[in-house]
């Protein structure tokens, strides 16, 4: 599903990725690990086409992401669900509305919204929080909203950037259980983390980065 072929990226004089080559297969759950600044988020941003590599190829679903025209970026992103460390939920919208936004963005028919939103909110355990605003939710609940928004569009791939970074261990475990469940349903998951406990949570492939290079797969 994802292939990085000798990808290099520098920000000024700092080399963030140095000849990175990796592959993620359909239905896989892969951890991207490494210390801060190792290049984990850069890899996720390249898959999202938020940034372009200086050299090398990034292939997603048989398409070279680096060659996609700017106007086709939204369609590329609509095939992915994204979960962020800082949740990135819309503060002025209720839980339901936050999830509905993803459906509106992906142009899903409005008649389907209610059914889909109910389903994902049940999946992430937020059915009883549907009408609440983000300011009325805990950190774990906010991350579940972010996860529900990512899942509601039924994406091929879920990119999670330190989704447990702002959560206590118990809440983080809950989120991990959810991601495991989603992965078992056939979704491909690429998760960036430096949380040792989380990495040991499931027996998944680990891609360890250090100074922009892959040290261990």
């Amino acid at each position, binding site marked *: 599903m994802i292939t990085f072929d000798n990808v290099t990226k520098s920000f000024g004089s700092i080399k963030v990725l140095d000849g990175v080559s990796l592959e993620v297969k359909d239905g896989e759950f892969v951890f991207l690990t490494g210390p801060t600044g190792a290049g984990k988020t850069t890899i996720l941003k390249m898959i999202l086409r*938020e940034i372009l590599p200086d050299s090398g190829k990034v292939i997603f679903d048989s398409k070279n992401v680096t060659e996609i025209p700017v106007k086709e970026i939204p369609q590329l992103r609509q095939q*992915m669900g*994204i979960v962020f460390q800082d949740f*990135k939920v*819309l503060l002025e919208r209720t839980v339901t509305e936050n999830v509905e*936004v993803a459906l*509106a*963005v992906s142009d899903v028919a409005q008649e389907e919204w209610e059914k889909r939103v109910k389903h994902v909110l049940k999946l992430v355990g937020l059915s009883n929080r549907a009408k609440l605003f983000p300011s009325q939710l805990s950190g774990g609940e906010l991350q579940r909203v972010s996860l529900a*928004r990512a899942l509601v569009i039924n994406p091929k791939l879920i990119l999670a950037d330190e989704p447990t970074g702002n959560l206590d261990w118990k809440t983080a475990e809950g989120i991990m259980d959810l991601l495991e469940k989603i992965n078992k349903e056939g979704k491909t998951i690429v998760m960036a983390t430096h949380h040792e406990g989380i990495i040991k949570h499931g027996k998944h492939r680990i891609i360890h980065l250090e100074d922009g290079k892959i040290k261990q797969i």
Partner: protein
Amino acid sequence: MSIHTKTAVDAIKRSPFQAISAIFVLALTFFVATTVSILVFSSNELLSYFETRPQIISFIKNETGSEAIIALQNKLVLDARVKDVKYVPKEQALEIYKKATEDNPLLAELVSPSIFPASLEFSVTDLKLAEEVINEVKNEAIVEQVGFTANIGGEKSLGDVVSRLKAISYYLRVGGIVFVGALAVTSFLVLLIIISMRMTSRKGEIEILSLIGATPAFIRSPILLEGIIYSLIGVISGWTLSFIFWLYVSPSLLSYFGAIPILPKEPLSFFLLFAAILGAEIIIGLAIAITGSLIAVKRSLKKAR
């Protein structure tokens, strides 16, 4: 309610004072625009009224036979300096008098057609030729007297009246366009500033939407809708205020100007005139809103990149 409409309405509710400022400026612009449009319309009607008035009236001597009158009429029709020749018999002259004095029927009862002379009314193609033509017509045997319509406001000739009206109409039009233009630019800038502020406050939301795959059109839609809502409310408020103002003053104006149709007297024509202005203003308002919003969105997204 669509997600875009809801976002736009929520944005307005969150910052009501920004919304009020935009609507107030737009309403003021379109109040003035409607008022100036009516003033320009009225000045045009006034000008057209005087321009189409017969400039010269030759009163025919009593007991003149119709053949002689027709002969003079034909002579005038064939004269290249003369246009719009019209014969007004005694009966029609009486009718005109009655109509002019309909407020006081007693005046009409006291007269009979015999006291009104028949006349040949006509205009000249160029007012410079008026004196020459008048002198020639005065020498016609059947002509008792020649009148030259003018002497309004002390002007020496109708030409002066028309020239003065043309000047007033011109200055009204130019002044109106400049004033309304300045207000339209102000509205445009206010809208631009408010939409830019809105974009800044929505920066985080725009970033999230972009990351989850929102197209630029999706991001733009609520902002455009917001501009359109301001614009429509502004146009309708300004137009309604001006409409009420003209409804209030039109009876006095129509009575003051009498036979001069500075405003449509028929209610339907009056409403149609205002409806046409509203239609034009909605188009202009939407153009201001869409252009202003698009520029603000483009600038903000460019800055955000």
